[in-house]
């Protein structure tokens, strides 16, 4: 199994000159254009950009749901797209993910939705129960745990998705617009949870187009995508960018290596 955290100082995530396009010949639309960056373990990274900038594509590439046309994507030093088909599930177990469209079972309860992700790991029923309860508590959904997901509001469904991602305790958590359906109060709660996870050592990559998130979160680093290009990130230099976690270095810096 691919173990991310045990690799020590190895980058949690590394994009090296990655390009990805969609569409047919003659009508090719670049989704990511020569994107390069490194994320060290335990970092909280904010990935910003307008809709269609390539944030979701970046997450899909990390999950090996898409293939890049060019470049290499490494998670804990392992090239994601050189993994065999049978190894991909083990990569994904290390990448908790909250999708923009939640991807929940609408007729199942939050309890069942969270439980499903843990059953995949082959955990004991007792362990599954404990982790499910804790995860739902953390996102404030204990009282709604037995209500079918289809009867929950968008914000509540978003929190179920987050609880599911957190419950499996992955070393890396990817969140694609996790506050898209939430009011400021709940957004603060979710961001707080992600921040807490990061402080506990989880690498968090939060993708959002919402500029208000900047007021709620204090990321270690910001990556900004525009039309598939990594243009800037806080104090960062675009393109070949190394991100160092604030707690591991003297400051929150992004140092250009290109």
């Amino acid at each position, binding site marked *: 199994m691919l173990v991310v955290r045990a690799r020590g100082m190895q980058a949690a995530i590394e994009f090296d000159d990655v390009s990805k396009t969609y569409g047919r010949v003659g009508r090719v639309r670049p989704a990511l254009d020569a994107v390069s960056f490194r994320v060290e373990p335990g970092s909280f990274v904010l990935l910003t950009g307008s809709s269609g900038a390539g944030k979701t594509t970046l997450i899909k590439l990390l999950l090996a749901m898409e293939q890049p046309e060019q470049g290499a994507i490494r998670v804990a030093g392992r090239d994601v797209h050189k993994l065999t088909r*049978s190894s991909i*599930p083990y990569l994904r177990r290390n990448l908790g993910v909250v999708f923009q469209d939640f*991807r929940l*079972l609408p007729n199942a309860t939050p309890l069942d939705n969270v439980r*499903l992700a843990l059953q*995949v790991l*082959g*955990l*004991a029923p007792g362990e599954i129960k404990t982790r499910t309860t804790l995860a739902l508590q953390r996102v404030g959904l204990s009282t709604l745990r037995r209500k079918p997901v289809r009867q929950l509001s968008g914000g509540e469904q978003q929190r179920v998705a987050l609880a599911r991602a957190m419950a*499996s305790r992955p070393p890396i958590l990817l969140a694609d617009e996790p506050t898209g359906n939430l009011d400021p109060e709940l957004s603060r709660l979710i961001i707080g949870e992600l921040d807490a996870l990061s402080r506990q050592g989880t690498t968090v990559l939060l993708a959002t187009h919402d500029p208000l998130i900047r007021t709620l979160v204090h990321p270690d680093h910001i990556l900004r995508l525009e039309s598939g290009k990594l243009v800037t990130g806080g104090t960062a230099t675009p393109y070949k960018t190394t991100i160092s976690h604030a707690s591991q270095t003297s400051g929150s810096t992004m140092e250009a290596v290109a």
Partner: protein
Amino acid sequence: MSYRRLAYSLLYIITRGLRGMAQNPLVQSLAVGTMAVCMLLLCTTILLFQNATRIVDDWGMDVPITVYMQPDAALATSAALAVRIEQIPEIRAARWIEPSAALERLERGLGRGPGAIAEIDPSILPTTVEVYLKDGYAEGFPERLAKRLSTLDEVEDVAIFGPWVQQARTLVATFRVLALSLGLLVSIACTVVAWSMIRLAVLSRHTEIEILEVVGSTTSFVRGPFIVQGLLQGALGAAVALGLLYAIFLQFYPLLDQGLSLLFAADSIRFFAPMEIAMLLGFGSALGALGSRAAVGHHAHS
């Protein structure tokens, strides 16, 4: 993966498969019913073939030439004749049957239980030598052999089965071909039924499959519940078919057995033995699993 994790995963696969069946009882009943019809056809043909073969054997139709010894012929003479006949290249075997054994056989054929013909003196029956031929003998050989044997002093008469034996054998052979052909057709039909039903289930649960793949489930974890579902459909279909066939068998058994006792072939008809039932259930399950594996192959992969 540790054994404990593997056990928990297997538990999930089985329970999810069962829940999958419970979610759509109508569709599942349709699948099981269709498979049962297919399996009923197959089991009926196999049962007919098995019993036809048994009747032919019990009736003695597998013995093309029977030599009846003179009443005063000594057993040693019959045994010596059997040995001599066996030396002929076209002969597969020659066995001498003493009167008491022939009487026992007659008693079995009548199907009236032991002692039903106790008053008959075995000595009224002659000692016989049963002659079995090898396959591929020349045309007219049985007749020539019978003629030659009938000239021997110790032989009283020689019986040779006529063309109707060949017809009976052809009938059994036809049953065999029919059973094999039906077996093939039923296998295809059951596989297609399981495939189409599981494909529907896969399509209706595509969201769940997508989620499972995203959270890191292995291919076998995704496919497992569907294969369990197909396997159960096949097993249930076979079980229903066997149950129905047994009920029909019980209805017709007394009548058929009585009829066959008149032909000295009572007790020839039997239902499947427990091992055969287990094999048919296994066959149904395997077909269900095969169909579901094919259905889930294209739709559920990482």
